[in-house]
């Protein structure tokens, strides 16, 4: 009598001992999973988009202040520096001394006129009203303390207005964080629904191949062998569905990325052109898509395959416990 290997396995590649090509047919499951993968891709893209916008706002506008100095040419008060300085000069000097200020630049008169031209027309060159000087300040980080600068400026130039963009950026960041959370929940829900669909398919497959399972079980197949066969089949079908879904989502994600580029600091020009005129090179596409998406999209079929394998394996093993 020949010895018997303790761990059974079907050796021939593609050997379908349980008839799973009929038990888990390749018609419905891949398309259902493809739909789930498509939705998951959109949710993940939403997550990356919200993260990208949030980061851009925080790094850009979040670290900016706008300081308006009324009567910029009048002498400063309480000026501990050189006597006779104008209010604007005192404000700039104070800003230069303030910790956390990376740069402070007074807008030249012609630049200020350009800003007003849409409203005042040519009168912007010589406005009838006295205009404040405007100083664009960039802080070292979004979290830099602006209160100290505000106090110091008021002391040398009373009436100076400091507009902190960070307040708005903070609110937008909260909104973006909420969007990210919603996208993550949507992705998890889609994964759960995909797992449920695969579990139902595995149950239907078990019901359809019950006699074959009982015969193979009676011949000495282990639960791991039988469940593994189902899991491999489900994994292949789910992975195929994931690939279809991710591929279908790619053109839509690219379009959204191009449209969102100006808001995220990417290819601004591309975003300002009509879609019909867009002729993106591979390099452009690589730039407008958030980097994480290039990892997540290929990972989608792998995740679908893993969900398929784990779900089918556990579902079938649970059923097999009914057999002696």
């Amino acid at each position: 009598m020949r010895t018997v290997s303790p761990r059974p396995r079907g050796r021939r590649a593609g050997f379908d001992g349980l008839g799973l090509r009929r038990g888990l047919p390749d018609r419905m499951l891949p398309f259902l999973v493809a739909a789930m993968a498509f939705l998951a891709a959109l949710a993940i893209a939403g997550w990356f988009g919200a993260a990208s916008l949030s980061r851009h706002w925080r790094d850009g506008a979040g670290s900016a202040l706008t300081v308006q100095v009324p009567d910029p040419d009048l002498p400063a008060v309480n000026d501990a520096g050189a006597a006779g300085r104008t209010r604007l000069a005192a404000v700039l000097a104070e800003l230069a001394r303030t910790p956390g200020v990376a740069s402070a630049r007074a807008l030249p008169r012609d630049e200020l006129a350009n800003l007003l031209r849409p409203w005042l027309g040519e009168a912007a060159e010589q406005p009838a009203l006295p205009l404040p000087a405007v100083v664009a300040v960039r802080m070292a980080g979004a979290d830099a303390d602006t209160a100290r600068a505000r106090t110091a400026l008021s002391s040398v130039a009373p009436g100076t207005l400091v507009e902190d963009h960070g307040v708005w950026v903070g609110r937008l960041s909260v909104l973006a964080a909420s969007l990210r959370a919603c996208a993550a929940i949507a992705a998890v829900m889609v994964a759960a629904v995909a797992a449920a669909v695969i579990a139902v398919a595995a149950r239907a497959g078990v019901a359809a191949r019950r006699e074959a399972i009982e015969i193979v079980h009676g011949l000495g197949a282990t639960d791991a062998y039988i469940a593994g066969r189902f899991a491999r089949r489900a994994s292949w079908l789910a992975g195929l569905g994931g690939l279809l879904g991710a591929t279908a989502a790619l053109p839509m994600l690219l379009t959204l990325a191009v449209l969102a580029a100006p808001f995220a600091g990417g290819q601004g020009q591309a975003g300002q052109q009509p879609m019909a005129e867009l002729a993106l090179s591979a390099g452009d596409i690589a730039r407008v898509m958030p980097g994480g998406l290039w990892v997540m999209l290929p990972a989608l079929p792998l995740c679908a395959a893993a969900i398929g394998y784990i779900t089918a394996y556990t579902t079938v093993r649970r059923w097999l416990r009914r057999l002696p």
Partner: protein
Amino acid sequence: MIRFESVGLSYQAAGGARVTPHGTSSRGGWSEPRAGPEVLHDIDFTLPAGVFRWLLGPSGAGKTSLLRLMYLAERPSRGRLTLLGIRVDTAPRKALPAIRRRIGFVFQDFRLLPHLPIFDNVALPLRLAGRPEDQIRADVTELLGWVGLARRTGARPAELSGGEQQRVAIARAVIARPNLLLADEPTGNLDDTQAERLMRLFQELNRLGTTVVVATHNEALVARHPGAALRLDHGRLTGHG
């Protein structure tokens, strides 16, 4: 060695299932099972390794149920059952597949896998045992030649006659040279010549050390090959010897 000690068997049925000795035809298959009426009562006997036994009795006596216990399609509801030297009533479930691979069986209804060619049906026990493919090919080809189906290796079971399917089932049962060979009416679909060849195969395997138990109604076959018998009636063992 096979030993039954006060063994009783009740089939477990899923809710609303019909209970048969060939299994349960449950409606859903996922609900919790419940115990049915006892079909075997207080079975006591011992078969030393390497013996041949007929299993005789009228229809409904419990022959198929006894065989189901012996190929581990069921575990006893009570009593102690030792198969091939292992206490299977208390053995962990994960230990049973290895025992099943040492048991060959021939069903009355063949129980071939309809989607597989007969070559793959016969090869299945060897594949489950992890044998190399070239050895499987040689062994299966030789055995299918012996049962007269060398030219039908690619045929599906549905393309074969009842007798041919029976021969495939027999080939599958013996391909792995089991320690215990069980057969339920194995000659029911065979002509006399094939039945005699089958009996010679059983006797040859028995001579090589395989324990063989054959359940049959065929009195003529038993008369031609007289031997010790287990006799059942109404789920009770009424004779052994």
